[in-house]
């Protein structure tokens, strides 16, 4: 459940940020004035703020996930986002997906499947925070 949320939030957040920043246009990082103008344009973009909000929620969900699951389990499994983003672009926006990218998507799916087959936690558990509430 939390795992699904983490993958979805990171994918949605990155897509929103990229949509927002495409609107702002290419940023010339050598000129302070252009940098400030781009920052101001980004700051009034709803897509950029929604993207930042999604990524903030993603980070909190990611932290909660790490409170019980192995890092070596969570990190490869969340790479599923790399599958979701091109698939969303292909299905919803009609974007082209190159053959090399399809191969990559298939390879990630197999890898995530293998990691999912291992126990999520291999270290000694700590007391559940949920259970301490009543004390």
């Amino acid at each position: 459940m939390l795992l699904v949320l983490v993958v979805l939030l990171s994918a949605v957040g990155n897509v929103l940020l990229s949509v927002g920043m495409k609107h702002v246009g290419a940023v010339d990082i050598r000129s302070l004035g252009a940098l400030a103008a781009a920052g101001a344009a980004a700051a009034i973009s709803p897509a950029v703020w929604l993207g930042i909000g999604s990524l903030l929620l993603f980070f909190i969900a990611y932290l909660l996930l790490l409170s019980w699951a192995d890092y070596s389990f969570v990190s490869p499994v969340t790479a599923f986002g790399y599958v979701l983003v091109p698939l969303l672009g292909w299905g919803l926006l009609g974007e082209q997906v190159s053959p090399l990218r399809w191969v990559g998507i298939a390879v990630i799916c197999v890898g995530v499947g293998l990691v999912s087959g291992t126990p999520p936690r291999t270290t000694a558990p700590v007391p559940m925070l949920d259970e301490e509430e009543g004390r």
Partner: protein
Amino acid sequence: MARLAFGIAIVVLAGTGGEIAVSHAMKRVGEVTTLNARTILRAITRAARLPSLWIGIALMAAAFFALLAVLSWTEVSFAIPVTALSYVVGAFGARVFLGEQVNGLRWLGVALVCAGVALVCLG
């Protein structure tokens, strides 16, 4: 070239180091398995008191700025696939520093994810 290799090393090592430090902090907070607002708030405030959380966030920020620098030196299609190495380095670090047991199946999965992410970014 040496500058680029150094930059990529910082991206990968500071990035995975940061995530490992953050994992270390969260393992001390206690397990959160329900999405209950009070429990989440307690977990976050407890985590915020742990130095390893802030060390982790600082390392992740350093990796982000190193990535920006690397992207200004080379093409995205080269830089991003190389950073997919983080999955392998991360699994290794989790074993050494967090005592996680990475079995053969997990190693194989991590290697495939690393290769797949590189392919998706190249494609």
